């Protein structure tokens, strides 16, 4: 993937959340955004997805610059996995995917049915396809959410703290599902607090604090240079 961000500024109620952020990343498959809560990493991910507006700056994925005019087309290239799975609560797991393919992407039912079924089987959800989101576990819901993001065949998949509301067993389930994406050579941007997992899968890591990139690189977790990152890792890995 290629990700270019140029002087990005985001404010909420006048408060600066992202402060003139710039980055130029190439030849990365798994990019991880780490940092303490409130550091701006989820906001950055949502801006990259085109989910929120920003004050100034530019964002491009694979050299395609985001513009307000074709934002809907831009979003179609991005698969997004939310913190709380965000499955449509009135639809079955199968319908959660089929509705998007049919009504947004204009695909024919006879084409996508087998694709969805194989996707659900891939993520171990085939026997739950007709269940509603509240009838399955949090881990299964999050896997369904990953399957849904993958179903639109996006250029890039963004995951926003997909395990933050799960217990350790379910977290492990979801991390395995994400690992599958990585093994399939999908381009991924991941916001997470699972530093051990980041070490394992990410080939580029960005550490953020107070809306700024403090440190970035391919080996910053094994060789942190800034005091802020050293302190952060010291805290999150203190009982690892």
């Amino acid at each position, binding site marked *: 993937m290629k990700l270019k961000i140029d002087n990005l500024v985001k404010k909420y109620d006048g408060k600066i959340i992202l402060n003139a952020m710039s980055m130029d990343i190439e030849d990365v498959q798994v990019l991880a955004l780490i940092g303490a809560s409130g550091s701006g990493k989820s906001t950055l991910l949502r801006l990259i*997805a085109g*989910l929120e507006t920003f004050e100034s700056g530019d964002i491009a994925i694979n050299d395609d610059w985001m513009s307000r005019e074709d934002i*809907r087309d831009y*979003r*179609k290239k*991005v698969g*997004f996995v*939310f913190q*709380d799975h*965000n*499955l*449509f*609560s*009135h639809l079955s797991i199968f319908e959660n995917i089929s*509705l*998007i393919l049919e*009504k*947004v*992407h204009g695909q024919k039912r006879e084409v996508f049915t087998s694709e969805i079924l194989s996707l659900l089987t891939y993520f171990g959800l085939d026997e739950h396809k007709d269940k*509603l989101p*509240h009838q399955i576990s949090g881990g299964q819901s999050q896997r369904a959410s990953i399957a*849904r993001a993958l179903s*639109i065949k996006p250029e890039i998949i963004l995951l926003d703290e997909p395990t933050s509301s799960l217990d350790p067993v379910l977290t492990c389930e979801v991390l395995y599902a994400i690992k599958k994406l990585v093994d399939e050579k999908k381009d991924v941007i991941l916001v997470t607090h699972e530093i051990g997992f980041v070490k394992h899968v990410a080939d580029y890591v960005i550490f953020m604090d107070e809306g700024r990139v403090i440190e970035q690189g391919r080996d910053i977790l094994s060789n942190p240079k800034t005091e802020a990152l050293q302190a952060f890792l010291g805290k999150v890995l203190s009982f690892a």
Partner: protein
Amino acid sequence: MKNMRKTFGFVAALVIYCVFFYYVMTKDIGRAWNFEPFGAYSFFIFRGWLTTIYISFIALLLALFIGLILYLMEQTNFSILHYLAVIHKNIIFGTPLLVIAIVAYYYIGNAFEIRSKILVGTITLGLYIGAYVSDIYKGAIESIHINQWQTAKMFGFTRFKTYRYIVFPQVIISILPPLAGQFALTIKGSALLSFMGTSEYYNRVNNVIANTYLNREGFLIMTLGYLLITIPLIKLVRYLEVRLNYKN
């Protein structure tokens, strides 16, 4: 055992009500009950009863549509439409239906030369109930979690498709209970259209009472006639509510 106790409780409560009303009516009437003259008017009354169902049903359908339009108007950034809806709702919320029915028929209806009492009555009732229904929509739509909207936006749903496929299917479930109450109010409210001279149930039974001087019998028939519509309706909505809740 639990069911038997519930049935007994229900029957006992019903008997208490019946005894109470029987006592009140018999004490007041000072003569034997006489339903016989109503036999001759049964078809006349039945047609009024059907008219009440017809007016209420059409008015509720109209109210569902008007309520949605009012809700959308209120939400729009186009300020004229927004305030048209706000003013409409304020007038409706602050004025008795009786006053609105009279103004609608004698002034608005006359001004636009609409002579059909049923048409004016149905539209009036639809506009009146529609204001309340718009608030039901508002409550239900605002109760849809922001996550659902965001996900729809993220996956490329247009605003229309978000409402059509994500929001409304969820809204329908939550508007059913308040809508049942609203439909019952519509049926009861239709009695006020008798002031326009609409040939609905209340008006027809009243006409028969005027001819026979059998007030108590007439009001008993009137009450039972309304209950015959509202109770099955409320039961039906409760059933649908349980079914849909189960499904979701």
